[in-house]
């Protein structure tokens, strides 16, 4: 099962209402994924010399206090921090690699769930409505968002195993389906320096994309390579700094529907997640074709 949803606002005037429009999309997919939920929101881009990290902790009472001042003291420069429950958004002008190394050494319990200039990723076990409330999704302003509701089939129900999975700066992935060659592919990617936090199949797809993007592939090239290397069923929605992409495996047995108006583009596993959006009644609605990459916004 699992449900995936994506919303890209073509009309900038709607940006203050992104979360209010997007939360019901996520919650409507609860039947398909009541185990855990997550979403990526693209908002408040930081300066060109800054990096925004989203961090998650199983022990926020120990990890969050003084993280900003400790990090600033250790790395120099400025560090800004916003705590969102057991997640925190940290913005630093330190070199990204140095920031990651510092976190691994001084906050070893903290997981980096996303990084880039505008992406923020929040995910947690529990019902989608509870996860949305925990991170105040309804109040989020931004340009676009993608989300996932999970019914786990092949690995544990944990926060780390929840979607979205980051695949690079400002890029993340949600997945409906299952991959059958993920163990072999994980071992191959680990030899090439990709780190994994879980036994999850989707994390391997994300790792594969990270690997391709690091080699200089465009997003479309990375997805095209995925058609060759990923064995299994998938509908992917990929969030990027400027939009999102949707693609399905050549068999295309995992559901997907897309809808577009002058104001927005939406994708979902089922149309009912889109039905409440303003103008959905008269939107263009179609099922994305297999083995084809659809993109909106200025995707690489």
């Amino acid at each position, binding site marked *: 099962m699992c449900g995936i949803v994506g919303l890209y606002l073509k009309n900038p005037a709607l940006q203050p209402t992104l979360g209010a429009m997007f939360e019901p999309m996520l919650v409507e997919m609860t039947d398909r994924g009541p185990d855990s939920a997550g979403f990526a929101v693209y908002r408040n881009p930081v300066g060109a010399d800054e990096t925004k990290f989203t961090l998650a902790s199983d022990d926020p009472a120990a990890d969050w206090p003084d993280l900003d001042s400790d990090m600033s003291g250790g790395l120099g420069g400025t560090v800004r921090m916003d705590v969102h429950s057991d997640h925190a958004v940290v913005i630093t002008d330190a070199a990204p690699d140095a920031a990651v190394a510092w976190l691994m050494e001084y906050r070893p319990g903290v997981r980096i769930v996303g990084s880039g200039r505008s992406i923020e990723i929040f995910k947690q076990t529990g019902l989608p409505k509870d996860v949305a409330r925990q991170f105040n999704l309804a109040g989020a302003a931004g340009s676009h968002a993608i989300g996932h509701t999970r019914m786990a089939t092949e690995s544990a129900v944990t926060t780390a195993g929840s979607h979205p999975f980051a695949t690079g700066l400002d890029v993340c992935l949600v997945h409906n389906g299952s991959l059958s060659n993920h163990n072999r592919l994980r071992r191959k990617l680990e030899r090439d320096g990709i780190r994994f936090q879980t036994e999850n199949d989707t994390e391997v797809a994300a790792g594969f994309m990270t690997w391709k993007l690091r080699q200089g592939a465009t997003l479309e090239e990375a997805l095209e390579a995925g058609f060759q290397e990923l064995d299994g069923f998938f509908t992917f929605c990929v969030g990027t700094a400027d939009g999102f992409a949707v693609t399905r495996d050549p068999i295309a047995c995992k*559901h997907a529907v897309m809808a577009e108006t002058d104001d927005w583009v939406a994708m979902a596993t*089922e*149309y009912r997640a889109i039905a409440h959006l303003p103008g959905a*009644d008269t939107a263009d*609605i*179609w*099922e994305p074709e*297999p083995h084809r990459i659809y993109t909106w916004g200025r995707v690489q």
Partner: protein
Amino acid sequence: MTMGELDLKEIGVRGVNAALHELPDGTNERQWVINNPMGQHAIACGLDAPLNVTVNGHAGFYCAGMNQRAEITIQGHAGVGVAENMMSGTVRVTGNASQSAGATAHGGLLVIDGDASSRCGISMKGIDIVVGGSVGHMSAFMAQSGHLVVCGDAGDALGDSIYEAMLFVRGEVASLGADCIEKEMRPEHLAKLSELLAAAGMDTDPADFKRYGSARQLYNFHIDNVDAY
């Protein structure tokens, strides 16, 4: 004759379907509109009366499934498996349809004004399907009987492992599935195609279509294929 209105938002899918199922045989209340379908699943399923039902908006999965005798119009998009296992009656989708439209259906007429996605008419068993646009891959997979008319193009592996259903395609066929071949269009086929296009209200010239069907090479075991088992 009065027009009955059912608000799905108010009474839910079960309420809508129960209201339509409870109508006594021979009722005069035959005209119904279902408002606020909101993409919910299994709307107007299992009807068995000569009703005229309009779904006023986009429907979710399995809309009009198992239909018998009713005439159902979906004003918009239909999700997966529209009119699946229909027995008789008519279902029309004014927009596009997702995959497996008309799956396993035994009878009746399914008309899709827009495109149908993959696996349209999978395992069809007697239904007639007319698609104004194109159909996706694996359409008419294992189709047993009935007719599939495609006014646009057909995706890969059309009619794979087909039995005796008859396929008519006006545009390009990306590829034919196993044991599906182009066949001669004889006068009786043209007559049937004309009848189906007229029934669907499609203003398309039957002479533009090609006919496809089973080569009947998979029906019996062939000794030359013994190595494949």
